[in-house]
């Protein structure tokens, strides 16, 4: 710790703090453009200049000067930092004047207007007139992909975007070519960026040089209602802010949450919102004579009731989709139970996860923040870059710190960091439990982390693979006091919540495979389940949001609410319970899913015992107390893993497949999005080109 006086206030900060951090610790705000907490220090904007006593006798860039670099006074007084002195004011005004020399005065037509760092700081340090009578610099706009729009005249060369793509995203596409005044930010020959987190560069841009292309000229920040919510595109549960104008979702931005997504989100999370507006189911439909015909709610319910009454209870079943909140899964499970059936499953992909084995067997036990502490990571049947992009960035962050050993079993993929490839299938995993060299690495590690993906579990021998992975984890000491390094990486936002409330087949119940098989069910309820195909013969009730696979197969369509249109709990892959607020309203006659189920239950004569979402949530929490701990990842009992490790089962030799074919098209909302379609096509073209 070192003492330092900031504007007359003495603070005690760690010696390795930068002056900027020390000033913030003292409650003094320092303007900055290039500095960003999660990126390396560049020190090139010079906006953070401060005056120091105990350092060089000139304005000092506070982002790049450490507290320990300053000398004490002649009598041992702590060094002094002045942030409001005339010298500082003059220096910052000079910097601002230089920045504005080449910055166009197009704020009225700039998307960044109203939330622009340069605009804000020019209010504090800008001059009212320009002394610059020459021509401004003109820079050609660059094409850097379908997601980020460039307006390069506005660029102030802070290089945050370059540092982000190189350091955090790990796909070094962006660079600064030329030098001095002619420095320009671009990709190599203006190809599209290839990162799946590229949208973040537009967030990082302190000016309007990089803006969100799908959002361009759509709205102004001051006319948007901001709602804090949770993302459902993957199982990370990234914290997001949904900005709406009227009934319309205008954009999605990340929220800072150090233990989940830091402040990044993937492009799918960010740009999927245009999919919320198209292909929507906005009224109930009933299939008559082979065609879906618009119907009223009561007609739809009557059609369902007729079929349900005719069917035996064992021939009723429900499949939970990937985007459902815990409340509606709970409501559906209760309803199916009341109808006398044990047929419910939330594992559309057939992953061999069973809540009966204990919660520790299906959550990401070490938590996402725990990745920072791991010193050896084994990835089994997973491609975290595309299954959980933000989590992959976390692994990359850990790798950049050094001293991390990485191994992968499964399909060889580019994860943005190097790893040791250990093999393709369960055989390689068995080796680790015995003689494998990487097994030794895991055993020697203080905090080994074993990440099991759905690619390893969604297969006939999934249960045996899960047990084998647990055996490896226990054998290498990944499960011990203070550290549980067994992690299951999910791909579906609804999955852990649904497993938590036990949305799996009860005694004698049918699982997904049995329900979708011919003759499996007479009446199937699909709660937004679009990744399964019910065999012909069954009467399918689809409760969902988009005209996707499930709706095409449906005999009755009940229009539900998409994730920004309902409030609900989501449990992410680490078992963290998070609350998503409602930001918009469902279109047309669509209703929140739990309310539809409640109304349907009444028609079916099995009224669910709650009349509003609060009552539902109260019952949910009463039944599953850990769901009441919002924003917490309640640690699961690791004893379950020891038991699981004892379980036998034979694994076959087939290689682990990847659970995600196309990153951009994993759910009905994404499949409805034109932006996602464009990204997907671009990626396909790039892959085809690379294959040539």
């Amino acid at each position, binding site marked *: 710790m070192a003492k330092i006086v900031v504007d007359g206030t003495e603070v005690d900060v760690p010696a390795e703090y930068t002056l900027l951090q020390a000033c913030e610790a003292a409650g003094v705000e320092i303007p900055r453009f290039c500095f960003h907490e999660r990126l390396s220090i560049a020190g090139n904007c010079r906006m953070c200049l401060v005056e120091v006593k105990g350092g060089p006798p000139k304005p000092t860039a506070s982002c790049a000067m450490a507290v320990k670099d300053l000398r004490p006074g002649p009598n041992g007084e702590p060094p002094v930092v002045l942030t409001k002195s005339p010298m500082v004011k003059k220096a910052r005004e000079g910097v601002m004047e230089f920045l504005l020399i080449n910055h166009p005065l197009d704020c009225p037509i700039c998307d960044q207007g109203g939330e622009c760092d340069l605009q804000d700081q020019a209010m504090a340090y800008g001059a009212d007139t320009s002394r610059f009578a020459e021509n401004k610099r003109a820079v050609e706009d660059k094409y850097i992909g379908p997601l980020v729009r460039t307006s390069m005249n506005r660029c102030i060369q802070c290089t945050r975007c370059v540092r982000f793509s190189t350091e955090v995203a790990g796909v070094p596409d962006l*660079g600064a*070519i030329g030098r*001095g005044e*002619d420095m320009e930010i*671009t*990709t190599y020959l203006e190809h599209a960026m290839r990162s799946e987190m590229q949208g973040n560069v537009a967030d990082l841009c302190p000016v309007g040089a990089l803006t969100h292309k799908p959002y361009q000229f759509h709205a102004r920040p001051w006319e948007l209602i901001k709602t804090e919510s949770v993302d459902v595109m993957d199982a990370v549960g990234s914290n997001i802010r949904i900005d709406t104008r009227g009934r319309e979702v205008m954009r999605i931005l990340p929220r800072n949450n150090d233990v989940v997504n830091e402040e990044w989100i993937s492009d799918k999370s960010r740009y999927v919102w245009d999919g919320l507006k198209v292909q929507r189911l906005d009224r109930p439909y009933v299939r008559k004579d082979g065609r879906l015909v618009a119907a009223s709610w009561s007609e739809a319910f009557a059609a369902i009731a007729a079929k349900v009454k005719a069917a035996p209870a064992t021939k009723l079943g429900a499949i939970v989709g990937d985007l459902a909140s815990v409340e509606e899964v709970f409501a559906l499970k209760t309803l199916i139970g009341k109808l006398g059936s044990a047929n419910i499953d939330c594992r559309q992909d057939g992953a061999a996860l069973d809540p009966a084995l204990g919660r520790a067997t299906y959550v990401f036990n070490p938590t996402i923040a725990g990745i920072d502490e791991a010193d050896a990571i084994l990835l089994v049947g997973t491609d975290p870059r595309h299954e959980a992009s933000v989590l992959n960035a976390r692994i990359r962050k850990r790798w950049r710190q050094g001293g991390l050993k990485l191994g992968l079993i499964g399909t060889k993929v580019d994860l943005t960091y190097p790893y040791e490839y250990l093999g393709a299938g369960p055989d390689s995993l068995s080796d680790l439990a015995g003689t494998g060299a990487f097994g030794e690495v895991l055993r020697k590690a203080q905090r080994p982390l074993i990440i099991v993906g759905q690619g390893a579990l969604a297969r006939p021998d999934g249960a045996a693979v899960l047990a084998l992975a647990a055996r490896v984890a226990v054998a290498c000491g990944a499960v011990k006091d203070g550290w549980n390094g067994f992690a299951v990486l999910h791909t579906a936002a609804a999955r852990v919540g649904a497993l938590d409330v036990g949305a799996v087949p009860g005694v004698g119940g049918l699982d997904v495979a049995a329900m979708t098989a011919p003759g499996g069910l007479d009446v199937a309820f699909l709660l937004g389940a679009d990744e399964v195909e019910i065999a012909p013969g069954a009467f399918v009730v689809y409760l969902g949001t988009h005209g996707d696979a499930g709706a095409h197969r449906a005999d009755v369509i009940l229009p539900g609410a998409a994730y920004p249109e309902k409030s609900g709990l989501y449990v992410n892959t680490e078992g963290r319970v998070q609350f998503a607020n409602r930001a918009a309203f469902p279109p047309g006659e669509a209703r929140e899913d739990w309310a539809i189920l409640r109304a349907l239950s009444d028609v079916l004569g099995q009224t669910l015992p709650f009349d509003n979402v609060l009552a539902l949530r109260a019952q949910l929490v009463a039944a599953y107390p850990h769901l009441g701990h919002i924003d917490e990842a309640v640690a699961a009992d690791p004893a379950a893993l020891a038991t699981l490790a004892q379980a036998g089962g034979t694994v076959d030799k087939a290689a682990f497949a990847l659970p995600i074919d196309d990153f951009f098209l994993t759910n009905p909302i994404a499949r409805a999005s034109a932006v996602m379609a464009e990204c997907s096509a671009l990626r396909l073209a790039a892959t085809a080109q690379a294959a040539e």
Partner: protein
Amino acid sequence: MSVRRLAAEQPESFDFTPELEAVAQKLIAKYPEGRQASAVVPLLWETQKAAGGWLPEPAIRAVAERLGMANIRVLEVATFYTMFNLEPVGKYFVQLCGTTPCMLRGAEAIRHVCERKIGHERHVSADGTFSWLEVECLGACTNAPMVQINDDYYEDLTPENFEKLLDDLAAGRPVKVGPQNTRQGSEPEGGARVLIDPALYAFKSNVPGFADAPATETPDLLAAGLPRAAAESPVDPTAALSAAQEKAADGADTREKREAVAAEATKPSGAGE
């Protein structure tokens, strides 16, 4: 300086020749394992030489691949340094200094010669022999105006002698590198004019024990145009050098010896004070 862009017309591909690959291996070997990216500037330079004086886009990619860097990282370097030409250059690439001292000494006239004899700036002459570019100071201000053609400086130019120089180069005739007038290096024209008083070179030692050298010898030698070193020490300089090398080779005590000599040298002057 202006915005530097890759040339519009690019070759299809660029392959490392065996010679270039050998050079690359040598360069990369200078850096620790995994730090091969440090060789990017020298390797680009060698590549530019191999590619005919400029860097085609495929060559930038080839260098990136050879060093395991992202293409954009190499492009950043190539566009940053003006020593890398992004557009084709002539067989003789004339870099004309146009900075103040050269400008004051007539670089404008040289520029006109370039324009007349070669053509527009940054354009290769029709026969591919010449191209020219005005550059910032090349550090030969004493011999202004000057140009750099490929690796050599041609100084003290006048429109006439520069034109002749270009003609000679075009015709393949031998040319003189350095000042194009009678000057020797950056010496004054017509020989030394100051510091020629012989008394300045009379050797007077304040070290006791050293006899004053006879003052007459040196000026004569200077006037005869002999190099100073030869004038002062009539011993064969190569012999002295090899002796020094032998001394250095014979072991660890060399440094001590040197220190002892230095101490010896400083002591009397300290005593004199």
